[in-house]
């Protein structure tokens, strides 16, 4: 092993290596703790370093000019800046290098502020020694850096919107108006979605369909929008800028020449519950989803039609249609569509309260859900807008609303559904508006009226005499004779039990992810949160992007939200997609995996772990290949390869191993090597620095893009070199920036623990910690705990462990 290292070192230094090292004082931030002059002198003595300087503020204009001048004058061909975190100024220094004609990927930074001076404020000697180590590690890595070219891929100027609710409509219109071709894919027979079903909107009490219908017809006639109803996405291939989507367009059995005259309805003998009216009325097998439907074309529900066996047993609608629009021979078609960007706006399902048997939904006719109520009170609904209760079609005098049904509960959906409070208040006001003598009771836990105009509406409801009672009923009892309902519960503010008799009870049900959300999640490689909603790339700063490039989120598919928020998000998603399409090309960071076809045996293990399906090939048929445009650069595939055929550019095995070796070249027994992922744990360590949380100075942090890049061979090497402890840290399991690639981190570390236990080595020395970017304290705590564990170790123990972990000769150490 030693010989090999020396040889590779020789190779590195053979080339004309001229490293320039710049140690920044950052005023007193670094200079107050670390003796920067001493560090620069030390750096100057390192092999390959041509010059080493310290400066007050390297990021300042003069500091950058110095680097540029040195690159030009002294032909510096690698730059090491020892200053703050690369998450802050890497782009600055990369730009400086590029301006001076040096490839930006030939820059390396040593983080001696957040990871050194700020966390060891009171130990100047230790901080200076650590800074020397960090600079040494950076120099080693810099010596092995290679220039990289960022790949540019074209972006097709066409978009697909999946889901035709208000969010999908808005996104489609925004992109189409910007001049791009949009394919709007909707599963049902008409666009409109949930908003079309709702009677009024809160807090303005606008008529929902009245404000939506103009937008729907705009979609229908927009020259740039291709509307595909009764259609579902079946397959997605490709990557950002170039998606190939297969869409199944189901047969409508009615030609688009249909004038929606409705002559056929009377003729049709087949009846079915009307989905649009939440099952409260009946429709025929041939029907139009609702009066304002776009496209305004009838359709035949083949599951109900008598002709569903392919035999024309009934042709009454055909006979009734004067325009001869009925076409029983219509077929499902599979369309193949190429687009550059995709907006996902698939919306939500409504919670079904049947499971809550104590409330009697489904057994007691007068217990209904809010969606059913919306249809009941809508002028286009089954009762033509008359408020009637289902059992006897009498107008109810006492109506109760029950909040948080299916929401905020570990037995159903643990989250707050966001819209139910305001929806109930709006519904209560609607009843009061039409029938002021109705007594209305709202049973709640907390009323969440947080939005613009919401509190106003809440107050209006109280002034109108709506009674708000804190305490959800535990049980509803039905009077068998009158069908009236008795609610048993406790008024928590009064501290006394109640018993109310009501004519009708409306369950304010929550909303939940679509039952088939996981199917689309797999097709598009999206991540979901613990509640099952699609996850955004960053909850604060990239709220409509997904972890898959070129795919954006809009509406409630991303989380429960009201109409206004859905529209806002849809416009944001469209705007993000428009940026890509207007540029027409996208640059992909040059941190990707590469497969050496000479070494690849075609086993396909890498393709199995790739979270982006970015590795293509088939088992046993030649070598696999990385699709660079689809590779997001997590590096999860690299440790999976048993034949060292994969490497990651800019985070190569060679580079990282050189960092490990240098960090452990002096006093290894007292050192902890910490592998930290760029997005969470490295940022968490930065946050510990920003917060000045003090922790022991014997940790050396090595950055990878994702914790899944951490190879068991690195861990092994650390222990063989005598490291006291090794920390592998990444994002929390659901927060991984690479689509849960960190599940492989956990698997590999667990496997290494087993190996340690088998070899009789104290497995506490290898630690796995999930540290988010906000958990600086957690990072500091982990290091403190590991240091305490370290103190109990004797050098003999460490050396013995290293001997025990030496891989058996000839046997390949387990890579996965």
């Amino acid at each position, binding site marked *: 092993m030693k010989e090999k290292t020396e040889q590779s070192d020789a190779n590195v230094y053979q080339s004309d290596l001229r490293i320039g090292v710049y140690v920044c004082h950052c005023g007193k931030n670094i200079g107050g703790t670390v003796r920067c002059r001493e560090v620069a002198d030390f750096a100057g003595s390192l092999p390959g370093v041509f010059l080493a300087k310290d400066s007050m503020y390297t990021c300042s204009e003069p500091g950058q000019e110095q680097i540029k001048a040195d690159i030009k004058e002294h032909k510096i061909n690698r730059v090491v800046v020892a200053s703050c975190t690369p998450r802050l100024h890497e782009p600055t220094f990369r730009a400086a290098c590029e301006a001076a004609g040096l490839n930006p990927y030939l820059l390396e930074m040593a983080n001696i502020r957040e990871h050194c001076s700020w966390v060891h404020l009171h130990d100047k000697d230790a901080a200076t020694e650590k800074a020397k180590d960090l600079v040494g590690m950076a120099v080693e890595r810099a010596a092995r850096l290679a220039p990289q070219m960022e790949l540019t891929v074209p972006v097709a100027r066409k978009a697909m919107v999946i889901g035709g609710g208000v969010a999908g409509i808005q996104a489609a219109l925004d992109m189409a108006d910007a001049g791009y071709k949009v394919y709007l894919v909707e599963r049902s027979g008409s666009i409109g979605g949930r908003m079309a079903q709702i009677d009024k909107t809160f807090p303005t009490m606008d008529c929902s369909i009245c404000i939506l219908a103009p937008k729907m017809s705009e979609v229908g006639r927009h020259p740039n929008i291709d509307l595909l109803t009764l259609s579902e996405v079946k397959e997605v291939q490709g990557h950002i800028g170039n998606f190939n989507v297969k869409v199944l367009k189901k047969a409508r059995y009615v030609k688009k020449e249909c004038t929606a005259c409705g002559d056929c309805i009377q003729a049709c003998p087949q009846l079915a519950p009307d989905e649009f009216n939440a099952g409260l009325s009946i429709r025929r097998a041939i029907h139009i989803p609702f009066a304002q439907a776009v496209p305004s074309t009838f359709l035949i529900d083949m599951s109900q039609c008598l002709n569903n066996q392919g035999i024309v047993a009934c042709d009454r609608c055909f006979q009734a249609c004067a325009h001869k629009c009925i076409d029983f021979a219509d077929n499902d078609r599979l369309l193949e569509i190429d687009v550059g960007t995709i907006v996902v706006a698939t919306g939500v399902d409504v919670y079904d309260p049947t499971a809550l048997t*104590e409330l009697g939904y489904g057994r007691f006719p007068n217990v209904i859900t809010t969606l059913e109520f919306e249809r009941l009170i809508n002028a286009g609904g089954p009762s033509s807008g008359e408020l009637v209760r289902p059992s006897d079609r009498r107008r109810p005098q006492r109506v109760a609303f029950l909040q*948080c049904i299916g929401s*905020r*509960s*570990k*037995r*159903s959906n643990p989250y707050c559904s966001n819209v139910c409070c305001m929806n109930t208040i709006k519904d209560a006001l609607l009843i009061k508006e039409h029938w002021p003598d109705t007594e209305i009771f709202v049973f709640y*836990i*907390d009323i969440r009226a947080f939005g613009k105009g919401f509190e106003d509406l809440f107050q209006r409801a109280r002034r109108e005499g709506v009674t708000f009672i*804190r*305490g*959800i*009923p*535990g*049980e509803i009892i039905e009077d068998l004779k009158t069908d009236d309902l008795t609610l*048993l*519960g*406790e*008024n*928590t503010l009064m*501290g006394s*039990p109640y018993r109310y008799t009501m004519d009708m009870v409306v369950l304010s049900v929550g909303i939940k992810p679509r039952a088939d959300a996981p199917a689309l999640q797999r097709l598009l490689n999206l991540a979901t949160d613990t509640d099952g909603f699609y996850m955004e790339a960053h909850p604060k700063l990239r709220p409509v992007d997904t972890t898959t490039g070129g795919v954006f989120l809009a509406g409630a598919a991303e989380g429960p939200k009201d109409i206004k928020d859905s529209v806002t998000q849809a416009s944001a998603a469209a705007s993000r997609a428009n940026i890509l399409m207007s540029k027409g090309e996208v640059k992909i960071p040059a941190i990707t995996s590469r497969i050496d076809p000479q070494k690849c045996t075609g086993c396909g293990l890498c393709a199995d772990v790739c979270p982006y399906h970015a590795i293509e090939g088939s088992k046993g048929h030649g070598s696999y290949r990385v699709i660079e445009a689809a590779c997001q650069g997590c590096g999860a595939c690299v440790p999976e390869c048993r034949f060292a055929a994969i490497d990651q550019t800019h985070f190569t095995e060679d580079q990282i191993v050189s960092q490990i070796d240098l960090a452990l070249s002096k006093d290894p027994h007292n050192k902890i090597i910490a592998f930290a992922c760029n997005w969470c744990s490295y940022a968490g360590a930065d946050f510990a620095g920003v917060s000045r949380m003090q922790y022991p100075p014997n940790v050396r942090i090595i950055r990878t893009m994702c914790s899944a890049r951490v190879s068991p061979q690195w861990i092994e090497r650390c222990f063989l070199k005598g490291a006291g402890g090794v920390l592998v840290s990444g994002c929390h399991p659901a927060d991984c920036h690479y689509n849960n690639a960190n599940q492989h981190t956990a698997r590999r570390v667990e496997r290494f623990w087993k190996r340690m236990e088998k070899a009789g080595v104290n497995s506490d020395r290898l630690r796995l910690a999930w540290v988010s970017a906000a958990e600086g304290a957690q990072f500091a705590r982990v290091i403190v705990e590991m240091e305490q564990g370290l103190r109990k170790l004797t050098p003999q123990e460490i050396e013995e462990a290293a001997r025990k972990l030496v891989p058996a000769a000839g046997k390949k150490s387990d890579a996965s």
Partner: protein
Amino acid sequence: MTLKIWKYFNREDLYECYQCARCTGSCPALQVAPAIGPRETILKCLNLGHEEVAKDPRLWLCCTCNVCEDRCPQMIPISELLVALRNSAARHGNIPSRLSMAIELLAKTGRSMIAHQLDEMRAHHGLQPLPSAAVDEVQAILRKAGLDDVVEF
């Protein structure tokens, strides 16, 4: 003598209660008696401490049907809490006299009913007198259950 009920019940389970009162609304005891509802029990445990709650004689009106726990949206193990509270209450002397008398009877005679009148009835019907009860064994069991802290025997 105070029994630390948090040894038998995880206090943190209570923190998730958001006082929706579905439990109290479901409580059958509360429909027929002035019982203390589960919601109020939890709130008082959190705000006043369980020692205060353990002094309340209404604790004993719970009929341990566990419907409250069935319907709790936060899945708080309410029935466990109520049992732990009653254990604590009994050791404080907060126990209905009928219950403590029953324990005393069991401890002293080894039977849960007064048996000497039974012997006459049995003789009347031509039955043998009852065999003697294993008082020592019963007492050992009661001690193991900690009931010697509640009732003297």
